[in-house]
């Protein structure tokens, strides 16, 4: 297909190649996580993908707030009423069988939807158990997750992203005119025929697994996906056996974007930063044996070379970041719906009523159930009343009356996310930091029961950073907290600013943020990172006012051994509660916070 060396290929050419490979084997490669704002590049790419797919292959778009009955399938209301017995309707997933599913705004997809998608991808079929029906339909399709996230934190749920072979990022990429060597629809059609018979030599499987391991790619799905991609590439190139080139390209496209470390020749040199390492993983034992293993694996070396060339410079910085906020899905950990509306939340029973004002949702199944016992009686009644009833009524098999209407009531707790803003500077002595960490963990331990989440921002040196994106997971919290270093200046303003930003994001997800600031209030770094106490204090006060303007509820815990007026003043500007706790330990801090935190058991609907 091409004689260009791999490094010469532009990102656009890679993207087109990925589209072709997805078109060859949508179910095997599973798909693409496409990070891009809507625009020319994305439109052109999607058009390319569609043009490569054989005619008649379904391409469906999955809207963000799809409900389960349309996603998985359910009761076809119109047909049910017409026929007088339950008629099932297939959902979007089943309708996409053999084709490609476009997931719109993938970065906003809830963990629940992602889990449903993942189950269908894993099982190769949709299983529905709802509305009194059961459907099993074998379903295989590819997914294109359209990720429009802007910040590092907005990512598609990991459960979904992990299952997709390709990761494309169109930032700064512009579409190019199709090159001569671009595969066309005929090539794809030929490749699809060939695909099933393409064999994988052992050394290819070994090399792909080895490469994944050297790059620190944990999930076993990655080498499997790479193998599927290599096979699709071989088929596209007209080969019956996966070649070295196929494997190298697959590794570059699939494994390189997943790398969590650069392959290093002598393993003993490897000293990754602490928080870089995935959770509770002692350095893998396999690693020590690796030199022997690698020795007689020229293919793996070759692939690694190709992959290394594809990892852009400066990736290590990004990797560190990725390691810290590893499961990037901001909404991971929360099942269910995020919107604050009467029509969402957990169903809290059904009652008789009318779905008139739009303030309630008709529960079709329960309505039919309520009507069912009366059918013979009503039919008789109708017959007795003679032929004057209209045609429509006579053809209606099920007679539903006003009394039968049942509506579903929903209950939704407004979730609270507590944002801890922790002063990790030198002035807030280190042991205070340990206590703050302890308090966060203690509060988190109760979170599952209360359905709350915790996030953590720390500030020290010249800037603030998001240490822990909103989560309910103890595992994540522990991992991220463990790596929190202390020392340096006190950029209090930056800390507050970041908290306000985070609170805004949280609020947009329909949750209630609550800010807890643990500091001694001795700001000495201004917002722009310049040292100097007066400017720093002024900035901190300004940030505090911004917090109040945003209408956030906050609590300031003064951790200084001898509380100073500035902390109190900042609290006043924030309109926050002020709590001086000079000698408290983790348990006391968490106790005090619990005591002053308002109860939050509001139900909607």
């Amino acid at each position, binding site marked *: 297909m091409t004689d260009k060396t791999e490094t010469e290929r532009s990102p656009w050419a890679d993207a087109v190649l990925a589209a072709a490979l997805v078109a060859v084997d949508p179910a095997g490669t599973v798909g693409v996580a496409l990070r891009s704002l809507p625009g020319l590049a994305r439109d052109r790419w999607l058009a390319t993908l569609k043009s490569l797919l054989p005619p008649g292959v379904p391409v469906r778009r999955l809207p963000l707030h799809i409900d389960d009955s349309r996603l998985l399938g359910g009761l076809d209301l119109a047909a049910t009423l017409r026929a007088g017995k339950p008629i099932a309707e297939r959902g979007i997933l089943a309708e996409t069988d053999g084709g490609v599913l476009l997931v719109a705004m993938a970065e906003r997809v809830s963990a629940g939807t992602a889990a*449903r998608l993942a189950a269908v991808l*894993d*099982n*190769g079929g949709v299983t529905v158990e*709802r509305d009194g029906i059961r459907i099993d339909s074998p379903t295989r399709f590819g997914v294109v997750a359209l990720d429009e996230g802007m910040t590092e934190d907005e990512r598609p749920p990991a459960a979904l992203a992990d299952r997709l072979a390709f990761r494309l990022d169109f930032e700064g990429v512009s579409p190019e005119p199709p090159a001569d060597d671009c595969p066309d629809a005929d090539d794809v059609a030929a490749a699809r025929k060939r695909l099933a018979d393409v064999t994988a030599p052992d050394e290819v499987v070994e090399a792909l697994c080895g490469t994944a391991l050297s790059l620190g790619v944990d999930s076993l799905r990655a080498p499997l996906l790479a193998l599927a991609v290599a096979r699709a590439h071989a088929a596209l190139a007209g080969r019956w056996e996966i070649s070295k080139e196929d494997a190298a390209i697959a590794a570059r496209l699939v494994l390189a974007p997943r790398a969590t470390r650069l392959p290093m020749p002598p393993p003993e040199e490897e000293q990754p930063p602490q928080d870089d390492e995935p959770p509770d993983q002692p350095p893998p034992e*396999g690693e020590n044996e690796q030199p022997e293993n690698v020795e007689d694996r020229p293919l793996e070396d070759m692939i690694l070379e190709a992959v290394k060339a594809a990892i852009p410079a400066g990736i290590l910085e990004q990797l560190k970041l990725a390691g810290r906020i590893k499961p990037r899905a901001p909404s991971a950990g929360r099942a269910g719906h995020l919107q604050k509306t009467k029509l969402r939340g*957990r169903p809290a029973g059904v009652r008789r009523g009318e779905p008139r004002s739009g303030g309630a949702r008709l529960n079709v199944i329960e309505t039919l159930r309520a009507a069912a016992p009366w059918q013979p009686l009503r039919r008789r009644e109708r017959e007795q009343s003679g032929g004057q009833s209209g045609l429509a009524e006579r053809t209606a098999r099920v007679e539903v009356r006003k009394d039968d209407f049942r509506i579903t009531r929903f209950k939704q707790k407004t979730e609270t996310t507590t944002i801890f803003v922790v002063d990790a500077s030198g002035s807030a002595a280190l042991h205070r930091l340990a206590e703050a960490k302890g308090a966060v963990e203690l509060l988190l331990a109760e979170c599952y029961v209360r359905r709350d989440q915790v996030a953590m921002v720390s500030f020290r040196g010249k800037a603030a950073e998001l240490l822990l994106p909103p989560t309910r997971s103890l595992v994540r919290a522990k991992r991220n907290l463990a790596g929190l270093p202390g020392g340096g200046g006190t950029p209090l303003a930056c800390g507050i600013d970041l908290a306000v930003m985070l609170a805004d994001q949280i609020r947009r997800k329909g949750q209630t943020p609550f800010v807890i600031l643990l500091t001694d209030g001795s700001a000495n770094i201004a917002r722009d990172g310049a040292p100097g106490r007066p400017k720093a204090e002024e900035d901190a006060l300004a940030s505090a006012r911004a917090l109040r303007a945003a209408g956030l509820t906050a609590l300031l815990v003064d951790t200084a051994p001898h509380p100073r007026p500035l902390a109190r003043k900042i609290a006043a500007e924030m309109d926050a509660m002020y709590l001086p706790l000079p000698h408290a330990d983790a348990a006391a801090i968490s106790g005090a916070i619990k005591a002053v935190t308002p109860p939050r058991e509001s139900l909607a609907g």
Partner: protein
Amino acid sequence: MALVFPFSAIVGQDEIKLALLIAAVDPTVGGVLAFGDRGTGKSTAVRALAQLLPKMKVVVGCPYACDPDKPAPACEHCRGKKEGELKSRQVQVPVVDLPLGATEDRVVGALDLERALTQGVKAFEPGLLARAHRGFLYIDEANLLEDHLVDLLLDVAASGENVVEREGISIRHPARFVLVGTGNPEEGELRPQLLDRFGLSVEVRTPEDLATRIEVVRRRDAFERDPEAFVAKWKKDDDKLRRRLLAAREKLPSVKVPDATLESAAKLCMGLGTDGLRGELTLIRAGRALAAFDGDATVGDKHLRRVAPSALRHRLRRNPLDEAGSTVRVERALQEHFGA
């Protein structure tokens, strides 16, 4: 649905395989919870188990799949019938999926809509819980299961009986099943009450040595390319394992638990400070099932040692400030009690 990856072909993952087999030998051990990273084959193992399980005898026509030798007292169909009256047949042990997004009526059962609409008959249509009776109920992503379904499950799993009171239907039927859940700890914690319902809890890790990983990928690829041939290739091993399971079930009642073993178990649990007696009970039961599976006549320390991590790790009192995970704590206690 499509063919399932054979149980014997699963590479490594000894802990989850053992836990599932133990639950299959003795369902009273309680369910199995498998928590672990993505892509480690948790679901694969559970689905493979479904194919492995030996068939069971059920009463013909009983909606709740009663055992002809021992019909459940709560079963309306079989109650009051004499022994000779019940015809039986062999069926596959059910492994019922509780998919996310399942509605309450499908889980507990509800008025049969079709019969109600067409014939005006008030009939009960059994739900997932009825189907799972005497088998396994599998919840993937257990930590994402909606709360009201969790509530339902907790009650039924504790009582072994499903009581339905809705739409003018008042019915109770047996629902004894082994709960199997999988999940990813990164997605959030499990409710403590639900955690407690699982007899065994295992941690699933991604294998880290190259050879194992290559083998996993190779087998998976072979399976996906030609499922029939792959399943046929492993049939012998699966059959062998199935026979071993059957033998273990038969042997189970005769396996002795010596006082010394009881004492070991009690000491271990006290040392770890597990809540309640459930930990000890599960430990002993799991140990007995393992002994039966291994063909041993008595339960000894070696059996306890192997099942202790799964039986106890989720029963430790949580101390969020303790950096060491519960697995490490159980290991430490095992070292203390049984020596290295």
